[in-house]
């Protein structure tokens, strides 16, 4: 899932300073699971904003709405009947959702209420961890199912480096060395011979280096 982090109330209040009528949009997908931008977080943020404004004697009207997804225009269309009643949209979906809402309502200012951080998994209730950087050329079949791009702080394809000590990364003593994880997993899978294969230089044009990416499936287009 895409993991995001709520911005501080202070930052959001600063962005909202000139506005009195706010449409607060949550998203029912990834940001709901990582407890950053779902229906519940919409409720908490709306309450925080109302309390904060009331304390300062300022008015604010907030419409709370959580869409099924903010990355599909069919759902974004659901707010069209009343979007014009609000001065600004505050979205707490991921960066993709926030932008897409802005693309659909071009005369509306759309403000971000979260910082979108990574593609990850839920380690346990309340703990999320990064697993993928969307590099566009997956090497998991060569590295025991552990991604060297996302899990190694240097994204080394042939690691580990000299900063690996007792299975931990020099960047942070609590951070597992990605290449230690790869070697451990290869051992478990009885595939340690793969470690001897040199992974060639990566073609980063499939990643961000090739500019913004687009995917097309002609057979699905209407």
């Amino acid at each position, binding site marked *: 899932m895409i993991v995001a982090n709520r911005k*501080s*109330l*202070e930052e959001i209040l600063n962005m909202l300073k000139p506005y009195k009528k706010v449409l607060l949009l949550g998203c029912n997908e990834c940001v709901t699971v990582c407890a950053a931008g779902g229906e*519940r977080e919409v*409720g*908490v943020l709306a*309450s*925080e904003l*109302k*309390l*904060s404004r*009331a*304390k*300062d*004697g300022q*008015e604010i*009207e907030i419409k709370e709405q959580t869409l099924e997804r903010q990355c599909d225009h069919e759902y974004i269309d659901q707010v069209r009947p009343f979007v014009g009643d609000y001065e600004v949209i505050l979205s707490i979906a991921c960066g993709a959702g926030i932008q897409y809402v802005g693309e659909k309502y071009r005369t509306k200012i759309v403000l971000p209420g979260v910082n979108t951080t990574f593609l990850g998994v839920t380690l346990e209730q309340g703990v999320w961890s990064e697993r993928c950087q969307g590099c566009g050329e997956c090497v998991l079949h060569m590295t025991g199912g552990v991604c060297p791009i996302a899990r190694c702080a240097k994204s080394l394809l042939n690691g580990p480096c000299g900063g690996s000590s007792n299975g931990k990364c020099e960047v942070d003593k609590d951070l597992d060395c990605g290449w230690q994880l790869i070697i451990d997993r290869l051992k478990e899978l009885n595939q340690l011979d793969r470690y001897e294969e040199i992974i060639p230089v990566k073609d980063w044009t499939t990643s961000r280096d090739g500019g913004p990416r687009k995917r097309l499936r002609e057979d699905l287009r209407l």
Partner: protein
Amino acid sequence: MRLNYPTNVKIVKVPCTGRVDILLILHAFESGVDGVYLAGCLEGECHFLRGNLRAKKRVQYAKKLLDEVGLGGARLEMYNMSSAQGQRFAEVAREMTEKIKALGPSPVKNRVRGVQDSRGQVK
């Protein structure tokens, strides 16, 4: 026991403090209350195992939110007592009332729009 406790304390009954969501607490403040406290079972004696411990964590989190908002986290507290401790219940009610009185009325009292009053009417 015929114990007295301050009349300003209004009780909201829940099956377990684990039921108390952060939104419930925030909505109480929106409706203009000056303070909120949770009276949970003693730690280690939750009928639902960890309900009061969950509530404790939520209270800690909600305190931070109240600090950010500017109301002050001190307006929210968590207490633990058993159902056999009537004396302690009355004592806590007095303690919290005095604490909140010292803090003064909530700065958002009657100021949040769209809140239902006790008769269900929207202000």
